[in-house]
């Protein structure tokens, strides 16, 4: 992997997404072309229903495009089979959603350990990493709590930490601050800006929030199935 700052991490060319709907087909994305670079923080704005979540799902290999190509470090993810896409996500992608990020049956500590464990990081190193993350969040004393004991903001901070724990190339955040008050939103956002930066991780956040857009390196707009925005 090239270490040069600003290398393209993920490239989209002419990506289409069509959902089969009850009677007719719904075209949500119609020809998206974009390049996301190493270490940048991109905010994607758009009205509700414009296809933001759909786009993030395609980027993370959760869903497949109906047409066009998505290349991650030059490798086309649309051509990967289910198993390989799973492994791709496991290694290279971190997700932050608006809700339901954490596994309710695992403690906070175990939630953070989880992706490291999946990636086969040895236990001692993984534990050190989790302790380091928790102390950066200021939640060292909450490691043994289960997620439902935490406030929404705390849960969301843990979710951010988990998304970066295994040092992925790409963090995809779908309305990461959607249900938080302003102060809490700022806290979470600060983490989302700062944590990935250390590892040169690209962050793509879908949002309605001007607050999120305000701190992005680049803002793109999703409208009528196409993506436009100034290249940084």
């Amino acid at each position: 992997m090239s270490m040069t700052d600003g290398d393209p991490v993920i490239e989209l060319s002419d990506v289409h997404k069509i959902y089969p709907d009850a009677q007719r087909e719904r075209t949500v994305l119609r020809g998206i072309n974009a390049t996301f670079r190493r270490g940048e923080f991109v905010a994607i704005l758009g009205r509700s229903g414009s296809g933001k979540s759909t786009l993030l799902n395609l980027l993370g290999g959760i869903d497949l495009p109906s047409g066009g190509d998505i290349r991650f470090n030059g490798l086309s993810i649309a051509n990967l089979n289910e198993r390989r896409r799973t492994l791709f996500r496991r290694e290279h992608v971190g997700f932050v959603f608006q809700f339901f990020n954490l596994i309710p049956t695992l403690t906070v500590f175990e939630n953070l350990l989880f992706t490291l464990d999946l990636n086969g990081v040895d236990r001692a190193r993984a534990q050190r990493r989790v302790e380091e993350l928790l102390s950066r969040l200021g939640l060292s004393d909450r490691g043994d709590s289960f997620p439902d004991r935490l406030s929404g903001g705390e849960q969301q901070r843990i979710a951010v930490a988990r998304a970066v724990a295994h040092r992925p190339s790409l963090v995809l955040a779908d309305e990461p601050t959607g249900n938080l008050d302003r102060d809490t939103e700022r806290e979470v956002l600060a983490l989302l800006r700062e944590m990935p930066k250390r590892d040169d991780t690209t962050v793509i956040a879908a949002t309605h929030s001007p607050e999120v857009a305000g701190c992005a390196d680049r803002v793109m707009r999703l409208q009528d199935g196409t993506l436009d925005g100034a290249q940084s």
Partner: protein
Amino acid sequence: MILARVSMRNLLRHPWQSILSIVGIALGVAVVIAIDLTNESARRAFKLSNQMVAGQATHHIIGGPSGLDETLYRDLRVEHGIRGAWPVVEGRLRLPDHDGQRFTVIGVDPFAQTSHSAIHRSTRGLSPTELLSVHNAALLADDSARRLGLTIPGELRVHGAKGDHRLRVTATVSSDNALENQALRAVVITDISTAQVVTGNVGRLTRIDLELNDPATVTRVRGLLPPGAELAGSAARGNALQQMTRAFEVNLTALSLLALVVGMFLIYNTMTVSVLQRHRQIATLRTLGVGDRELFASVALEALTLGALGVVAGIGVGIVLSHQLLGLVAQTINDLYFRLDVKQVSVSAWSLAKGIALGIGATVVAALAPALEASRVPPQITYTRSGQESAARGSVGRLAWFAIVPCVAAAVLLLLPGGSLYAGFTGLFFAIFGFALLTPALLLLIVRLAHPWLARTLGLIGRMAARGVTESLSRTRVTIAALAVAVSATVGVGIMISSFRTTVEHWLVNYLRADLYVSASGSANGVDPGLIRRVSQLPGVKSITTARWTNLDGAAGRTQLFVLDAQSEAFENFQFKDGDAASAWPRFKDRDAVIVSEPYAYHHRRGVGDTVVLRTDRGAREFEVAGVFYDYGSDRGVVALHRDTYDRHWSDPAISSFAVYLDAGIDADDFAATLQDGVLDGTELTLRSNRQLRALSMDIFDRTFAITNVLRVLTVVIAVIGIFSALMSIQLERGREFAVLRANGFTPRQLWALVTTETGLLGLAAGVLALPLGLFLALALIFVINRRSFGWTMQVWLTPEHFVLGLVLAVAAGLLAGIYPALRLARTPPSFALRHE
């Protein structure tokens, strides 16, 4: 791996559901293991006693009903130099001074000893003179002597065939082996001639045991046998005897497997519901990069954990349960087949291994679909319950179509003539499976039909409850199917038993037409002909028929003979299935024809005009079959022949019982009292009125089905646990929905009404579904399973109580399952449920 921790925590998070699943599987496994251990123990007890009696003997010479002439033994030993030969005289006697306890007398040759290993080993230290020095000398086991309070030497009064005898107990014996001591428990050992006198068979031997190790000698001995005798290998003979109980065992095993299948439904349901409820969590795991295989494995692991715990608990419960069931099984074997002393459950590793394998196997099969479901959850967190439900409803039609496959398989297996019992049971299980596939479609139909009625009677709550049922189809369909199957099994078995019972009752009314029955039950000693003559001369006696029940033992098994000395009127008691009394009678009376019972005809594939071969005292001979009669007394079948025929071919004057027909106007009870006091007093004979004999027969009938009833109840218990667990989890899952209702002004009472209406409706649906399946199962049991097991037909008697009971059972199970969640939900403050989700 942390994923495994997720699995374990999921189980701990819903402890009640986990525990109920474990209990369900445990009960299923317990029933299977208990039945297997019980069958195995009976089989083992039989084998051990058989081995003990045979000892080192490899063969037996068996005679006809009156045994063998003792000169045969002398000839074999002296003239032909066969060394390994032991004569045996065996008979039953009573001890009048000890509450009439029954003992077996075994006569042995003190010089040749015996092959009976318990006797052989326990008497090793004694010299032959111990039995010969004193007239009527006898040996008793230590235990028996102590139990009877005898001082040695001492005197023991015994009552045999021809009255009382005084035996001189010269010594006691004991073995260092517990089983051998057990075998000697109620045995008196004498020399041959004493045993012959006591049993009233002077000059006769019960059998001759032989140790023949080379085929040439076997052939030679066979050549030396008189016509009425047969040489049988001891192992083959044991097996043939044991075959008698096979169908009985298979039926019990099948019932126990049904319990396991219901337990399997339970674990399937628990896992399916748990996967559906965790959809969002699984989707999150998928976004984090957990692969489909890992998800499959983690759900399978959860199921296996439940299964393994269930199996472990099931082994314990099964062993305990087998102790309870053993008595019932032993009773039935003794009532219907042969005398068997089995008091101990022998826990065989093989039985346990089978139980474990079945339990784990059932779990794996049950977990397959939910594990697959989990592995197919897409990584999108677009969970909607209604989405799952519409998918579930979409599959309803497909499942119903797919039901055709097992249904056709069932029809073929059940209807194809000449199919085996195993094919019959396999067909039954296919039918149940097909029905389970149809359940969701039928459930929707029932709710649709019930909807207007519910809306009218319960208003809004009724409508909501009906919707609640269709909206939770993905979670309820398996439970409903399981409950319906269990209830239908209970209904079906219930109908079968009561049809059978009614058939037998009707049959007995025709079959038992005499007023009084006198029998020498339990001993082969028989009734004194002089006594019968005296009874026949009593005023009021219209006629007397006598009967002789005996077995023809041979290498191929045992044939039960029923020898009847009767006039043509008594012959009318037989109800013919094939042939008729009028045309059969002359041939039966004078022309050596026999009639056979329906089971005999079925097992041996004989009909009117065919012949059966019986070993007479003058060698094997063919007898024409003049009729096939209904009989429910023996499932192996009976060959009935006239006394005259019997006397022509066998020299055995013994009479087992006689029946007294009274003149019209004579009171049977008064006559019975006179008969008892005047003639029977002091004899070993039992007098029973027609009514008493019928009651006794029905008692035996009911005892036979006691174990079936236990299994029925256990199966229903497992299903109720299943519905309880499933409905509870569904209702608790809807905490948030109910909290919204509460927030909007629903009272706890209304919530309670909603939940119990819903679960009651599910129970009702299961009950309604169970009725047609129950009827089908009853018909299959009556016309296929019973026929293939025992060879008899019965009339179907449908009474409403089985259906009502099934319905009540199902609704009660549903309501019961609603109570706990309703209580809990009604108590939870709505704010709490709204916050947590």
